[in-house]
């Protein structure tokens, strides 16, 4: 049993407030620092990530020097206050956002569920959306074809599978979306608060 995820000194810097009003000036400063071989001047802030106190700097480390390893077969949970950086960490793990410093090493096929129903197109039917969403999550056409019946079965919206999803109730929408996600078979699955969907009957299945 070796580690399948290894997180090494991951840090992430965010800029607070409006993005875009001073960025040209900062870009130029950053470029000058780079040319002169100095460190990025905006990385020097030493603020902690405290949501409820006002900081002096416009920049904040959402994550600072995070280290952990996840073993094969292990379930790893991350808990924390709002704004503590849980989702940020998961975003980095699923390659949606890049870290400012540090590195992550992963072994095996990764699938991430930061949200269910990503890429659902309201005008397309349930059937089309299953294929589209599956493809976005990294499944191949054959895989989805093979699992289609069980996806529809799991979602329990068989009757509406050829109706555009914009006519679905929000519950049905989420059921279908989650059903697709549940049929992913990755070696590493990254999940962010998506299990809290559907009614009681559906949650039992999940």
């Amino acid at each position, binding site marked *: 049993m*070796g580690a399948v995820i290894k997180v090494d000194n991951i840090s992430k810097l965010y800029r607070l407030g409006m993005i875009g009003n001073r960025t040209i000036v900062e870009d130029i400063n950053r470029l000058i620092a780079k040319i002169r071989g100095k460190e990025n001047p905006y990385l020097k802030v030493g603020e902690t990530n405290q949501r409820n106190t006002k900081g002096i700097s416009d920049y904040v480390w959402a994550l600072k020097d995070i280290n952990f390893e996840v073993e094969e077969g292990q379930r790893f949970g991350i808990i924390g206050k709002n704004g503590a950086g849980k989702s940020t960490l998961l975003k980095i793990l699923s390659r949606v956002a890049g870290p400012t410093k540090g590195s992550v*090493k992963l072994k095996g096929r990764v699938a991430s569920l930061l949200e269910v129903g990503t890429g659902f197109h309201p005008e397309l039917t349930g059937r089309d959306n299953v294929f589209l969403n599956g493809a976005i999550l990294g499944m191949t056409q054959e895989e989805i074809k093979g699992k289609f019946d069980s996806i529809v079965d799991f979602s329990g919206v068989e009757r509406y599978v050829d109706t555009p999803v914009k006519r679905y109730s929000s519950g049905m929408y989420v059921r279908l979306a989650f059903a697709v996600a549940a049929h992913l078979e990755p070696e590493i699955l990254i999940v962010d608060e998506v299990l809290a969907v559907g009614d009681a009957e559906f949650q039992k299945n999940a």
Partner: protein
Amino acid sequence: MSKTSQDEWTLEIKPVSGWFNFHLKDVWRYRDLLMMFVRRDFVAVYKQTILGPFWFFLQPVLTTITFTVVFGNIARISTDGIPPLLFYMSGIVSWGYFSDCLTRTSSTFVTNANIFGKVYFPRLVSPLSNIISLLMKFGIQLFLFMCFLLYYWMNGSTNVNPNIYILLTPYLLILMAGLGLGFGIIVSSLTTKYRDFSFLVSFGVQLLMYATPVIYPLSALPEKYKWIVLANPMTAIIDTFRYAFLGAGTFNPGNLIYSTIFMIVTLSIGILIFNRVEKTFMDTV
């Protein structure tokens, strides 16, 4: 699950990887997604319209009629002896593909922000799917153009001479797609930070059309301004297209080579910047 040794990582995420790490293999791995996007674009565009796919026909026909009336009948711009309808339509159909490619790909990051923010796939898949789905639209419009062409040809219009250069059409398409994609992804990469560029594109494309022989033949240009139009990489493409299907205008291999080089350079720069931006765009868009 296969037992791999401790150092065999399949993926490593680092702050900024090199300029030349293109993930082209990844793009190939996600080809199913590419096709799904194409299908989505095609199916969803004209949902809940009465005429549906007929809009593909209606749009160029109405534009052609307008151009014929305004530029042909009112402004009386020369068409090199070609029936004005065919002349304008050939320009509109071919220019349309380029401008659609450019405008669609230039909003890649902004329109897909919600998908890109939630799941990883090679971002290049999105603009590529645009290029392909627009190709279908072009195919339909080309068919329409050929119908008109055939009609004129059968009725013995002596000025219309389709010739062997028609075989160059796929090559012209590659050039247009490459240019549209190249410029498009450069703009889309820049718009993540500075939205100004999206405004530039929306009217820039319109202005660029007037710097391309879409509504006038090259021969009608005063010598003084010719170099401006010839510096435009689209000029040779539109001109060759028209020459191939209608037999009027010029075919100049040198100009076409110029367009080719221009396309390769633009596309390379585009992919380079796009690659760079796709890793950080979530924090800036």
